[in-house]
């Protein structure tokens, strides 16, 4: 049988589907703006289209991410013998296959039970659209199985993951049978008590195994999804809820902005926008003490606001900035430390993704969150700028003369890129476009600028650019979707209520509470990435914030600022990993380089925590 051409065709189809969904995702909201502005109407069903395009994009994206083996995981550098590593890898493949299989059955049952056969979006039956969920999981299960090492032996164990996953999803199978082949339902139902026993007894060991193997490379989405899944199984609840939570999250109101802004960020980072911005900020600031470093900070901030917490900033411009800084007499350790520490510094400015996700999860207005983040964000940037000025003065770093001609040329050169944030902020805060529409405008604008005006990216290169950002889009959406299940378990088990009751009885001072909050968030940031943390931790702190009368926006800014530090804290610090890779420096040395910057950022976070007015002052001004 000819397998290869078939696989190649399938891969091409997958890419095409991803490509189409993101372009349509940009197109619908854009046309909606045009229709509303000029014709006072809108596109029929455009909201439902965009929501379900995100669903398709998420699952195609997650499948592609699995194919490219790029799911976000904790992967420490384990120093084991190759034989033992290979065994660990067999176990992780088994778990990945098993859970993706279980998720596949549950989402199949979910789509059959939650939607009627007649439900449609325009002419498309909803059940067929949602079919992307089980299909995506099946594809991922096969890919994880194929990645298992160790010849027949390893593959054999990994393949038993299909069977084990099916067993874990027995309840879902029974529900599927009830809809599709009622005659068989009795057979499945007969085994349900046995299956409940499995759920009861296996939950704790599997959860422990998931946490341990998380350190050995089981993707975060499997770990969090699996933990949520096993907790629901333990209490004997229907496991379709895991699929329902994923679906509900992915079709929520502001989520389409995530792929849109991420794609925008990649269009910029794949073009020569970075070089043009370096030239611009260099021309404008290099007469100033620490000018080059200030330039680097601003370029990083610019990129992070678009690429969000994806770490793309360091990959996209880290190398270039490091080259420019070292060329300008800055020492390598200072430059690596500065760039690593500022790789996530634009996190609080619009249109940053974590702020959007926080708003969605905490049910806080996203606009309020962005307004609240302005001053704290500026303080964070200014703190880094002061360090740069101090370092440059102390080390007597050469300053350049300001050359008007060069500045003018540089502004002209990067004019279109500088205009992008202006357009987004003007459109969004000026009440012309919604957040999602702003994202759509940003994608189309960036495409026009980089493909047609600067011609940095050729039209035929676009699929390559998209494929490069798929692991971020698919990977992040997969984490959010599956962490939502765990998040709902936490709510369902009334853990926030219990925690609140405990805090109410034991902590009486708001200031002690804030300090404990800082410490626990800092520890969370050491072990969790920002997306998982938002989904899992935010439901816990919201009632606590209410208890102590902390303004929801202030609480959000405290949370996000703490998580920003998490990028720099070992053992799990995304920026540390990426910087180690980009600057070709061992992690141990990078810890040392980053440490002084981390300390200063901690001071800023404390300032933000204890001076609420920094976060809430502008809110009043806006009203």
């Amino acid at each position, binding site marked *: 049988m000819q397998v290869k051409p078939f696989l190649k065709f399938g891969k091409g189809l997958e890419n095409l589907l991803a490509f189409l969904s993101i372009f349509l995702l940009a197109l619908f909201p854009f046309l909606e703006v045009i229709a509303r502005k000029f014709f006072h109407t809108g596109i029929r069903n455009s*909201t439902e289209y965009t929501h379900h395009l995100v669903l398709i994009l998420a699952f195609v994206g997650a499948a592609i991410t699995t194919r490219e083996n790029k799911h976000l995981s904790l992967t420490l550098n384990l120093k084991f013998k190759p034989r033992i590593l290979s065994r660990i890898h067999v176990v992780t493949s088994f778990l990945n296959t098993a859970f993706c299989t279980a998720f596949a059955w549950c989402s199949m049952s979910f789509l059959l039970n939650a939607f009627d056969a007649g439900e449609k979006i325009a002419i498309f039956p909803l059940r067929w659209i949602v079919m992307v969920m089980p299909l995506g999981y099946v594809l991922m299960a096969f890919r994880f199985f194929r990645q298992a090492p160790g010849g027949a032996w390893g593959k054999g164990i990994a393949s038993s993951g299909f069977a084990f996953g099916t067993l874990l999803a027995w309840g879902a199978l029974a529900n599927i049978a009830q809809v599709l082949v009622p005659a068989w339902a009795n057979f499945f139902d007969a085994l349900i008590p046995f299956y409940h026993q499995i759920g009861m007894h296996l939950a704790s060991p599997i959860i422990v195994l998931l946490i341990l193997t998380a350190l050995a490379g089981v993707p975060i989405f499997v770990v969090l999804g699996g933990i949520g899944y096993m907790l629901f199984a333990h209490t004997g*609840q229907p496991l379709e*809820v895991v699929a*329902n939570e994923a679906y*509900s999250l992915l079709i929520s109101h*502001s989520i389409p902005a995530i792929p849109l802004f991420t794609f925008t960020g990649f269009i910029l980072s794949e073009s020569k926008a970075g070089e043009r911005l370096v030239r611009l900020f260099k021309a404008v600031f290099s007469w100033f003490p620490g000018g080059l470093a200030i330039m680097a900070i601003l370029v990083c901030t610019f990129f992070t606001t678009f690429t969000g917490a994806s770490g793309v900033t360091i990959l996209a411009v880290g190398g270039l900035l490091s080259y420019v800084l070292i060329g300008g007499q800055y020492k390598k350790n200072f430059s690596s430390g500065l760039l690593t520490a500022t790789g996530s510094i634009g996190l609080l400015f619009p249109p940053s993704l974590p702020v959007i996700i926080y708003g969605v999860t905490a049910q806080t207005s996203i*606009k309020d969150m962005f307004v609240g983040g302005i001053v704290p964000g500026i303080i964070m940037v200014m703190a880094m700028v002061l360090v740069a000025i101090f370092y440059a003065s102390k080390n007597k770093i050469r300053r350049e003369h300001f050359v008007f001609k060069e500045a003018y040329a540089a502004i002209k050169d990067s004019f279109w890129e500088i205009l992008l944030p202006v357009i987004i902020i003007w459109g969004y805060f000026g*009440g012309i476009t*919604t957040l999602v529409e702003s994202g759509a405008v940003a994608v189309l604008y960036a495409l026009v600028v980089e493909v047609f005006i600067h011609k940095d990216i050729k039209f035929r290169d676009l699929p390559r650019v998209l494929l490069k950002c798929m692991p971020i889009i698919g990977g992040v959406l997969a984490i959010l979707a599956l962490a939502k299940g765990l998040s709902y378990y936490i709510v369902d088990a009334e853990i926030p209520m219990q925690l609140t009751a405990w805090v109410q009885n034991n902590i009486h001072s708001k200031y002690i509470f804030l300090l404990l909050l800082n410490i626990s968030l800092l520890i969370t940031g050491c072990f969790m990435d920002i997306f998982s943390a938002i989904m899992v931790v935010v439901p816990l702190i919201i009632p606590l914030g209410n208890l102590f009368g902390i303004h929801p926006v202030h609480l959000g800014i405290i949370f996000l600022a703490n998580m920003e530090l998490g990028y720099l804290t070992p053992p799990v610090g995304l920026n540390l990993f990426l910087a180690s890779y980009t600057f070709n420096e061992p992690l141990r040395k990078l810890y040392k380089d980053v440490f002084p910057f981390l300390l200063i950022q901690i001071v800023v976070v404390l300032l933000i925590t204890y001076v609420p007015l920094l976060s809430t002052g502008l809110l009043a001004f806006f009203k």
Partner: protein
Amino acid sequence: GSIAPDRSPWNDALKEIGREWEAISKGLVKLKIYPGGIAGSEEDTIRKMKVGTLGGAVLTNIGLTKIYPDAFVLSIPFMFHSEKEMAYVMERLNPIFEKQIQEKGFKVIIWTMSGWVNFFSKKPVLYPQDLKKQKLAFSTGEPAMEQAWKKSGYHIVPSDLKDLMMALQSGMVDAFYLPPLIAGSGQYFPLAPHMYSLKVAPLVGGMVIMDKIWQRIPENFKQPMLDVVTRLSDKLAGETADLERKVLDSMKKNGLIIHEPPSDSLMKWKEAANKGMDELIEKVFSREIYEKLQQILQEYRMKNAG
């Protein structure tokens, strides 16, 4: 699951129902309540009921429409003129609805009307053309309704309720329609201080339980359980009406201007709404139920005209 916030009269009533049901059934029936939308939006809640995570829910008419689309006729704008008219219609339509909903696997515990939805706007609105000049926020999850408003000639901006404040501030929207109680408690009205007292649509809602679960409850408990709900819902209706009056008074003191509809305006609103009606008939609800509703309304108006 309920979207009514904790510490609201609705949630207190739910808790009360939970206590009484437990007493009636001698501990067999226990309600665990998820207030304030923590179980998700209405659509989410319904999916959770279908897959068995939730046993029941308190829903508005938009949610009920997701289970049984014909229920949407109760939310058609400018269709009903008074509480009495509405009660007359519901008395005749509810049995049909409840039967259909039961076929979908849900048992309706109670289904009532609890007020009206009104327009709030930055500039006064009396006639449709006044509203057409302003941007109207649309936040309920019913795309066909959004299309119907657009077809009627209004400038619709889809927006999330939690972003309504900012949307009003930034000028993205100039008007919205909500029950006065929510407009007041959300503090939206200072930004859109003109309330139009014309009744846009009734606020209908109810409580449903999965039929599978209802069937498991012993027969002799069922009637007393339903009686408790009816009694508490009458009490709740009184409480919310009082609360609404209080909120309206305090809003007026804080600058709310209420505009009474001129006598010829209702005709104009209906005319405009009719333009969007073909977006709803056969797309959301059946023509049959729509005609049935018309017939009942005509019957009531004939009876009460003379």
